[in-house]
């Protein structure tokens, strides 16, 4: 269905001053109203990078800023496509709303939260857009089925693949914003790339976004930036250590609840999720302020595991790590036994974390037609996959690099008596 209604414009353009894009421009009433909804404003209270602030102290930026950034990139790219007559204008508002709302379902410390409670931020994004929310009411005022279309774009099941590609592909508005934004706030200089140059060399071909061969080096720059950000920031071992502890805190709190533990500071906002009964309304009440309040308070709980883990997180006394090699995997049961004998519960104090746990992904050329690779538009009109033309990209994508680490509390191990047989066994197995 082509939407032919014209969307109301604001009397005067609104702007947000933004460190990455300089200004974010809002000219549409719908976009302005969506930004003002409680569901969207909540994103101000959820950090974009979760626990990364414990490694890079500048990483305090929020999902609110990132969502505005993605909207702004989408807006500018659409303008470029319209100028070249490569865009169906009836899709513009759907695309802009999808860009703005693509992360609205994220919760506090999403990654850990989802691991422990089995939630899925993408499902919550769909629920917020389609459920009993102010966002849904605003979208449906634009026409019946409009909210569903926005949800479909975000869910990657919208029939117009070009619109989907703008928000979700190997070079999309989402990735372009978070790479630059995260590099800016962490202070990491190797995360920068020439985004405007990439826009200039973007073309549409059938239902996909491709890049002129002459702009290959800008795309290479982006791929290198993604690579560096992944290994230097997103997959930083200290950040992962904090993530492991955070996960264990939530896990422990859930276990204690089910055991009937009498909390000094009862986690009322979390009880429904412990019971598996959480509604959308309950979910929307959660943000980092709520979670961190309980982490701070639980340092005083009688349960030594919960209080210790919370102390570690709040005071940055994080787990150390070793590489989780096949020989260590072979000894993992013995290691867990040694921990238990030493009075250190391995269920909470011994945890593996792998690259598969990261919500970020490296560029890989393609996987039997599963993921669209980055295509270069050659001068003769043919399409060539990026790594086939670029030595730089070819070398990093051809190299498989995975990373699995085993996290443990080194301080607890070395607090054991020096000649304790358990300490010696642990040290021997871990090679420390």
């Amino acid at each position, binding site marked *: 269905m082509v939407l032919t209604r014209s969307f109301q414009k604001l009397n005067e353009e609104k702007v947000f001053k933004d460190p990455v894009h300089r200004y974010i421009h809002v000219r549409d009433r719908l976009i302005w109203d969506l930004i003002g909804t409680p569901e969207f404003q909540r994103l101000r209270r959820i950090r974009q990078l979760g626990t990364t602030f414990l490694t890079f102290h500048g990483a305090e930026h929020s999902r609110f800023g990132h969502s505005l950034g993605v909207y702004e990139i989408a807006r500018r790219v659409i303008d470029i496509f319209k100028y070249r007559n490569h865009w169906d204008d009836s899709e513009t508002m759907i695309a802009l709303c999808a860009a703005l709302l693509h992360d609205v379902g994220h919760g506090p410390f999403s990654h850990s939260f989802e691991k422990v409670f089995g939630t899925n931020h993408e499902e919550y994004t769909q629920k917020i857009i389609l459920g009993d929310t102010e966002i849904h009411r605003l979208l449906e005022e634009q026409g019946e089925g409009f909210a569903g279309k926005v949800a479909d774009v975000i869910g990657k099941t919208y029939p117009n693949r070009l619109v989907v590609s703008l928000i979700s592909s190997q070079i999309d508005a989402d990735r372009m914003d978070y790479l630059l934004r995260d590099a800016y706030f962490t202070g990491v200089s190797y995360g920068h790339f020439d985004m405007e140059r990439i826009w200039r060399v973007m073309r549409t071909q059938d239902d996909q976004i491709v890049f002129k061969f002459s702009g290959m080096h800008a795309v290479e720059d982006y791929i290198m930036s993604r690579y560096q950000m992944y290994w230097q920031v997103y997959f930083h071992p200290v950040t992962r250590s904090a993530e492991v502890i955070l996960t264990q805190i939530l896990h422990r709190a859930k276990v204690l609840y089910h055991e009937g533990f009498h909390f000094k500071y009862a986690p009322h906002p979390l009880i429904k999720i412990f019971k598996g009964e959480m509604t959308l309304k309950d979910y929307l009440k959660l943000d980092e302020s709520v979670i961190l309040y309980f982490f701070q308070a639980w340092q005083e709980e009688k349960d030594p595991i919960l209080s210790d883990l919370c102390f570690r997180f709040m005071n940055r006394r994080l787990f150390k790590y070793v590489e989780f090699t096949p020989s260590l995997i072979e000894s993992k049961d013995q290691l867990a036994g040694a921990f238990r004998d030493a009075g250190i519960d391995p269920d909470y104090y011994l945890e593996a974390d792998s690259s598969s746990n990261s919500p970020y992904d490296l560029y890989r050329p393609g996987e039997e037609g*599963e993921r669209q690779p980055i295509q270069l538009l050659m001068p003769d009109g043919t399409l060539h996959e990026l790594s086939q033309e670029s030595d730089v990209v070819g070398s990093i994508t051809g190299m498989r690099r995975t990373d699995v680490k085993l996290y443990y509390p080194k301080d607890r191990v070395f607090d054991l008596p020096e000649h304790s047989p358990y300490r010696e066994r642990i040290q021997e197995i871990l090679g420390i």
Partner: protein
Amino acid sequence: MLEDHAKIAALIDQTGGISGRKKLQKAVYIFQRLGYPFQQIFHFHFSGPYSEELSVQLEELCDFGFLIEDREDRNEEEETCFYRLSEAGEGFLTHYKNVLPTVRRLTEQVMNQNTWFLEAVAILLYFDYLPRIEAIEKAKALNNESVGENLEHVLAFIDELHMLQSIEMPVSQ
């Protein structure tokens, strides 16, 4: 620790090996929908449900030496890989008893299908929260040829899987 990796290794062990990452992706998705304890999150990609997590876990298993990846050249343009458990992988699995249910008929039914067919099955299962007619329309609207050309057979197969699931896995995992 590494339970998700162990489940993938166990599946490959049970089936004697899997040809192609795409087949693995679609099979794991279908098994997950049938109640097998796979935890990976899937999103809709170019050819239906796909999990980045699963893809990386497969690579990690290969890097650990627990899986052997044999490259097969189907033709000049297409290359795929056959994944089988190594001896080290068999040792790895000894630490994870009963990580995956042994549900022979259901597993065989899925693994005996070709990749293209499993793609169609996975796509329709992805949309099964919709009434069937809407799910089919949605899949076709995404221009998926595999769904359009074999629809009757795909639908019958899904019904058969659910029937086998109710017999072989009566309690959800």
